[in-house]
């Protein structure tokens, strides 16, 4: 094939040195597209590609070429001498220290890919938002029952490999029905929200806080034994007392606590069993005059 034939191919063909990145030769289609002359000895790959493409070249294209000798269908951005930026797709081969580039401008393909990238980002955002919404209780923005159970299941799976003490704290508002009846359901909702933020403030970031249903909440204390849980429960009682009601009384809660013991971890119903024990303790706290914590 004559040089004239090579020059007529409607794609950029050129050769660069792998180490110095110097452009050694190329066809005239490439020269006129880039508006350069390959006889200029100083011309380098860095003069032809965008800076982002250079990072991509050093981080992906070059290692692939060194390991496999060829890199196919890679998209980069050409920068012409006049400064215009053109998306292009290249196939590159490494032969005896030289890189053989076959590149074609790909503006239409780039548009399609941009649409795909945007569509994916859009989907990701929506999925993230939907996932968030399915996990949260709409009123309090705490985890809902399903999300807590799912997160606890993951923690229990981990505990099977390496035990970490975890306590489940079941919290129920005292005399919630009269609050709703006397001050209205909207006010009741407000109390639930206030309690939710008090709970979130008291516990640590590694703990889980969820609305279990109605006026019942669950806190999962990670890496806490019953002594640790006692401390957190006293802080919960303290924080809750700061929520005052319109009749100048203060909000109180009853709490039942239960620990997930090492021997329970393998039990497949360990979460519901632990919750049940906490529930019995809560029942005891209610029967014992409310505004207190009982341990199961």
């Amino acid at each position, binding site marked *: 094939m004559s040089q004239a034939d090579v020059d007529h191919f409607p794609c950029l063909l050129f050769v660069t040195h*792998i*180490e*110095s*990145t110097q452009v050694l030769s190329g066809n005239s289609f490439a020269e006129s597209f880039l508006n350069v002359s390959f006889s200029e000895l100083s011309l380098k*790959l*860095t003069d032809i590609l*965008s*800076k*982002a*493409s*250079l*990072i*991509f*070249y*050093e*981080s*992906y294209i*070059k*290692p*692939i070429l*060194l*390991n*496999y000798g060829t890199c196919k*269908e*890679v*998209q*980069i*951005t050409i920068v012409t001498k006049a400064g215009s930026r053109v998306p292009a*797709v290249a196939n590159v081969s490494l032969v005896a220290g030289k890189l053989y580039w076959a590149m074609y401008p790909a503006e239409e393909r*780039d548009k399609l*890919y*941009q649409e*795909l*990238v945007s*569509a*994916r980002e859009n*989907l*990701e955002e929506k*999925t993230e938002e939907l*996932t968030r919404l399915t996990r949260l209780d709409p009123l309090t923005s705490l985890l809902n029952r399903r999300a807590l159970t799912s997160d606890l299941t993951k923690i229990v799976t*981990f505990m099977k*490999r*390496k035990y970490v003490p975890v306590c489940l704290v079941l919290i129920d508002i005292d005399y919630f029905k009269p609050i709703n009846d006397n001050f209205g359901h909207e006010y009741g909702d407000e109390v639930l929200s206030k309690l939710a933020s008090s709970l979130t403030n008291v516990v640590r970031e590694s703990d889980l806080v969820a609305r279990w249903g109605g006026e019942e909440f669950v806190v999962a204390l990670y890496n806490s034994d019953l002594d640790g849980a006692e401390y957190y429960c006293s802080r919960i009682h303290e924080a809750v007392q700061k929520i005052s009601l319109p009749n100048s009384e203060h909000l109180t809660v009853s709490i039942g606590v239960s620990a997930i013991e090492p021997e329970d971890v393998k039990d497949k119903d360990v979460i519901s069993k632990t919750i049940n024990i906490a529930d019995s303790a809560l029942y005891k706290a209610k029967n014992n005059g409310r505004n207190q914590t009982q341990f199961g």
Partner: protein
Amino acid sequence: MYLKIDIKKRNNVRVIGEGENTLVLAHGFGCDQRMWDYLVPYFEKDYKIVLFDYVGCGQSDLSAFNKKRYSQLSGYARDVEEICDALELSNAIFIGHSVSSTIGMHLAIERPDLINKLVMVCPSPCFLNLPPDYMGGFEKADLEELINLMDKNYLGWASYFAPLVIGEGHDESFKQSLKNSFCSTDPSYAKPFAKATFFADDRHLLPKLTAPTLIIQSQDDSLVSIEVGRYMHKAIKHSVFNVVEAKGHCLHMTTPEQVACAIGEFLD
């Protein structure tokens, strides 16, 4: 959170070679431990060599990826820390390429017991231009374009519509194709690493580094200028600055003998 055996599996840890001293080789952004294949033969007779893939790269356990942790270089440093602890290493020699030099610096400052000496191959503490004091070489827009190129090449390289399925939707054959790829641009893992790498500014850590440090640079590196190397040399107390007679950013792959020679001199 992880047991020793899990860490080795998680980071695809390989230990080869023999010797009293240990080299920990940390790959840079883009590829995996296979980029060290060229350098390893120079050291495996005299050193124990630890190779690994950061979570999200190479054949690491992708299920261990946590976007929050791996959006910062300190998260990657945690990987190395956990690997060293799992292997019960101390006083190791850390060799990092490019961004891994900075990751090694994080670790050497936080856990001086683990890292005795540091070798930085083509390092940069900050890739951004922050005039007038510092020119890392890149503008924010360049790095945003990089992220976009990664996205587009992922579409071009992977099975076409697989990346549209996100979260846990990846099927097994798709996961396998990722595992086989040397340099993966899967946006779920590579984008946080790219952002952590190219948006980082860890210049403030340089004066805190006390371990003897070798900075290896090439004469012409399109990602890191000689000035950046000089800047680091000036800021790191016990540093040696070695500009080897070679060009490019992947010196340990293109001219491993020069890099091995520079490291050998430094370690002797």
